[in-house]
């Protein structure tokens, strides 16, 4: 007989709590409830206490808000790319449209910031959905290319026709009344968007949306309009993106063509891929890593884009699952080595 070679493999088994809570939700002790609640509470409380902790340092308070802005954009990218199958390389389009509409509502019509942001979120989402409607039948790389061009076209159109304030943009937009309204308005918006989208993808309507990603032919065969479903999903994603843009311009009181800049499309992708695609929470974690990192690298100018780009490439090529998927696995599964017989 040939000598058998001892080999091992890593076995992964779901924890009991995970199995029970996944489908039928039979929880019977505080321990199990806290097992499920702990990660959610950690994230929520982390964001809710952030302004209190950061209030002595207004600069880092703003950095905290930048995390929320990037997180919103990344959630929008993640939702479109990993739940609907529309990879949008033009997140800046949502952001810029929201920002410009809010600026016009505030400076021309004199709406107060809170109202302007809400109106700009909804109006902006309608504008974005209508603008993207003709491209929605496109798949894969074709959709990615066409969305990459939208924000670039907006920049060039604004420059060429000198519309919407031209290269100057709008200035003197009203800010928020206090540090606390500014902080909590955005944080509550982020948490609402995050948990609402997480809930949405598990509803029946969300099931149809996910089916479009997995097999659009079968959705079509079921008599459901693929493009219609995609349009609804794009509306939801652009709500988040436009809200981020509208909020940001009220924080800094001006808006310009930099709202359509390319790095606003790239950074959400980096945050999503680092944080973990297809989790919706991952992008938030990715944003919480990338924004402080970019603040530390601020003195180095364009070197920080180099760092981003290299980190992004590294994750895409070598660790495409991202942090969140890795952590979820560690949290929900037991790993052990077993001999192969």
């Amino acid at each position, binding site marked *: 007989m040939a000598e058998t070679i001892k080999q091992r493999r890593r076995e992964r088994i779901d924890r009991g709590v995970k199995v029970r809570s996944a489908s039928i939700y039979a929880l019977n002790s505080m321990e199990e409830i806290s097992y499920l609640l702990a990660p959610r509470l950690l994230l929520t409380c982390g964001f809710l206490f952030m302004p209190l902790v950061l209030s002595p340092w207004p600069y880092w308070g703003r950095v905290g808000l930048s995390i929320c802005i990037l997180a919103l954009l990344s959630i929008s990218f993640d939702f479109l790319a990993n739940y609907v199958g529309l990879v949008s*390389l033009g997140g800046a389009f949502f952001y810029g449209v929201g920002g410009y509409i809010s600026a016009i509502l505030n400076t021309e019509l004199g709406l107060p910031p809170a109202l302007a942001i809400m109106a700009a979120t909804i109006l902006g989402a309608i504008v974005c959905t209508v603008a993207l409607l003709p491209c929605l039948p496109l798949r894969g790389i074709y959709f990615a290319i066409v969305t990459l061009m939208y924000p670039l*076209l907006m920049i060039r159109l604004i420059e*060429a026709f000198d519309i919407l304030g031209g290269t100057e943009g709008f200035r003197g937009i009203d800010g928020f009344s206090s540090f606390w309204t500014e902080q909590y308005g955005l944080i509550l918006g982020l948490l609402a968007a995050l948990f609402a989208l997480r809930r949405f993808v598990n509803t029946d309507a969300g099931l149809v949306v996910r089916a479009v990603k997995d097999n659009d032919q079968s959705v079509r065969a079921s008599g459901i309009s693929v493009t219609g479903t995609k349009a609804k999903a794009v509306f939801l994603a652009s709500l988040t993106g436009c809200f981020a843009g509208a909020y940001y311009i009220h924080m800094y009181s001006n808006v310009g063509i930099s709202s359509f800049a390319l790095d606003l499309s790239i950074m959400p992708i980096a945050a999503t891929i680092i944080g973990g695609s297809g989790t919706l929470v991952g992008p938030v974690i990715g944003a919480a890593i990338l924004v402080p990192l970019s603040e530390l690298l601020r003195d180095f100018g364009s070197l920080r884009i180099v760092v981003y780009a290299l980190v992004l*490439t590294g994750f895409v090529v070598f660790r495409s699952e991202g942090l969140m998927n890795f952590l979820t696995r560690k949290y929900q599964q037991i790993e052990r080595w077993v001999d192969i017989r």
Partner: protein
Amino acid sequence: MFYDILVYGFIQSLALVLMAFGFSLVYGVSRLPNFAHGAIYVLTGFVAWIFFNQAGLPYFVSAVLAIIAAGLLGVLIYYLILKRVRGMEVSEVIATYAIGLALLEGLRYMGFRGGTYTLPPAVDGVSFIFDVPVDHQRIFLVVLGFTMLATIWLLTRYTRIGRALKGVAQDERAAMMLGIDSDVTAAMAVALGSMLSGVAALIIFPLGSLVVEEGYKVLIYAIAVCVVGGLGSWAGTVMAAFVLGYSQYITVAYGKPHFQMVVMLCAIIATLIIRPSGFFGKQKQLQERV
């Protein structure tokens, strides 16, 4: 004015052919969207500049060395990055785009910016065609553009390597059964594409100055030409380059220079909405839209 548009539109079109052909070749052979195309273009220019001005080599030698460097970079990008994400289109786009971004912004960080860097033209002097003054570098561009097209055409028909490239483009599985290594071919295609973009850079940069922003512009031009002509269709690429080159030159002649880019961006968006396979490509209905 008419002859002006005729002559300069022609030159602009061939410049677009040069810029886009590398991108088109890589996509046509191995279905790899090489979004680092613009970065390689700019990088070749700067490498040639360094060899020429810092190392003091003759211009021709530094140009050849820079083109070889571009080819090596292409091979490196393929084996380190593209090979691992092949087949996942979106990862390919994101990874190559990120590498391009890193290269371009790295150049900017190293201080290569502004209009201070220029490459010397290969030939000097001015001639008159239809009473329109044309400098010899532009004529050289036209001649080289046609030479390059002819070379690629001959290469893909009469050499082993070229036919392997074409075979993989037509049917990858069948090519593999006949003993053509798909990885080597794809790496070669990326290298060849990078070298072509390097050649384009060394001919086009002497007409202006070396700037990092050119990288983004070239990428968009290349995408525009390839999308309008049909991604991967080589004949389409050439025809689209002429359509876009002339329309670009006409808009510049009658409008503001800002519109040059608007034309390209609108062409990309309109083509993808109306006919995603491009106006000269084969339609693949279900692969590209539902």
